[in-house]
């Protein structure tokens, strides 16, 4: 009945894939919430073997939970730059426990590359990514839709309660005494910022402890979680265009909606913006780049770590 030229066919296939990814995005959280599957959150076999965590401290003054960016595929931090960042943070922070084994883009903590019907596809995609191909784009889009699920007023409460369970289980595994009131710091890199804010409401209810969120280039909406945290530190690179996605696409962050959670928190002095000159979102020139240097000679990675330490000392 109708025919398409090759370019239109490719564009149509991309559009269909995009739509399919979007409409299928909420089902993992919905199915988990409804109790159809994934009732028990899949625990990591053991604490991660990668040397980025601080062992359980007898009297930790606070717990730091790292929620990886949208390029993550599993609960173990596998990106070298993220690993190095956490390692340096762990070396310099004193009296804190770092929790780094959460995959925030799955409410069942299931890696994309394992325990899934399409695990083979994500393994293939990951290989393409590691070879410098298009795989990274597909993974980013998949995880970005999970960020949108967390920000959606219909799905968000379900997704965010799933994330909260993951964080809670990890905190307990790392020795967090529930009810102790020990402060928890959620570091959300990129889309992890939204997951941190989204889960803050429920985490606060469970822990009854102060919760601080650090959004590192965070893509965040005007989430009700802002009412439940002590403070949001929003670290933004001047050349980071990804973090602007949140400010553009989430109407609650537009200044015209003065009654939104975001604008209310901002007006109440609950949000601090920390601008890092010249930094981009990721890769060379990104927050975790150890090769690019600031004018004072400090690498971007060390600057980011130093900024985090300054926040943690407040």
């Amino acid at each position, binding site marked *: 009945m*109708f025919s398409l030229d090759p370019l239109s066919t490719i564009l149509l296939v991309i559009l269909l894939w995009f739509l399919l990814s979007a409409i299928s995005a909420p089902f993992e959280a919905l199915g988990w919430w409804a109790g159809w599957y994934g009732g028990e959150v899949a625990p990591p076999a053991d604490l991660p073997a990668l040397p980025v965590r601080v062992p359980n401290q007898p009297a930790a003054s606070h717990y730091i939970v790292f929620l990886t960016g949208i390029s993550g595929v599993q609960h173990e931090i596998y990106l070298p730059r993220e690993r190095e960042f956490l390692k340096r943070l762990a070396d310099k922070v004193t009296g804190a426990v770092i929790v780094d084994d959460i995959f925030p883009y799955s409410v069942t903590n299931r890696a994309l590359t394992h325990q899934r019907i399409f695990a083979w596809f994500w393994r293939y995609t990951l290989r393409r990514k590691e070879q410098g191909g298009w795989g990274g784009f597909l993974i980013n889009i998949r995880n970005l839709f999970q960020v949108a699920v967390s920000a959606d007023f219909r799905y968000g409460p379900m997704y965010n309660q799933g994330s909260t369970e993951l964080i809670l289980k990890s905190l307990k595994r790392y020795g967090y005494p529930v009810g102790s009131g020990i402060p928890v710091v959620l570091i959300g890199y990129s889309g992890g910022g939204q997951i941190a804010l989204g889960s803050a409401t429920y985490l606060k209810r469970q822990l009854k402890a102060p919760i601080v969120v650090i959004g590192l280039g965070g893509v965040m909406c005007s989430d009700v979680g802002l009412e439940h945290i002590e403070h949001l530190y929003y670290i933004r690179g001047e050349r980071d265009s990804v973090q602007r996605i949140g400010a553009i696409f989430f109407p609650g962050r537009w200044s015209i909606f003065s009654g939104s959670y975001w604008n209310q928190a901002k007006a109440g002095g609950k949000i601090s913006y920390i601008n890092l000159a010249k930094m981009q979102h990721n890769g060379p020139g990104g927050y975790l780049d150890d090769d690019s240097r600031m004018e004072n000679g400090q690498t971007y990675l060390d600057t980011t770590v130093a900024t985090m330490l300054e926040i943690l000392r407040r």
Partner: protein
Amino acid sequence: MMDAFEFALALWQQPDPVSLWTIVMVFFSSNVQAFTVAIQSPNRNLLVLQIVTLAGFSEAIGQSVVLFANRVRPLRFILSLGVSVILFILGYLVWVCSVWFVAEWVFDRRVALWLAGAAVGLSYIPLIFSFLALMPYFGFPVLRLLNVWAAVVLVNILRFSFDFEVWQAVLCAAMGLGIIFTLRLTIGKPVLWVMLRVRDAAAGKKLQLDLAKLFYSKEANDEE
């Protein structure tokens, strides 16, 4: 001689049935043309039923978050989708009757009920894409846009099929909607009550259809 024969044959022969796919494709080029093709088709009633059923199923899928949020079991979920489709079709029939009633009694247009049914049914084609409401964050606005699109299409088709001016078509649709709202608040209340009970029976539990109440109310927060 040949032309006369072909003309006689055309009168005698029924046109070929039109597929749903064809109507949808024609619809994208012209709403009115799709309507014309549909009403000339020998399977016009089936075609309209297919459109409305598919739109109903699509909307049920798009709104299925309510079933998940209420933790409905898988078999009950499927049953609930079926019930939603049936209720959607009943809603369509009420909508047809109210539009037809307004056209007949307010605007004095003598239009067959089946034609009104086809006009309203064709306007449901945009709603076939209601499943897009599943999209996170953008799904809800997309659903609203689809509803607006369906309303514009209805006005377009009413103009053509009922020989209306634009304002008459808009008024006819608006008054039809007004009748439905009035019915819902008056004699339709028991019907709505029964519909809700049927939904609950299919789901196997009392459904909370308002997600805001389910997740954001004080009661919901106190429960956890």
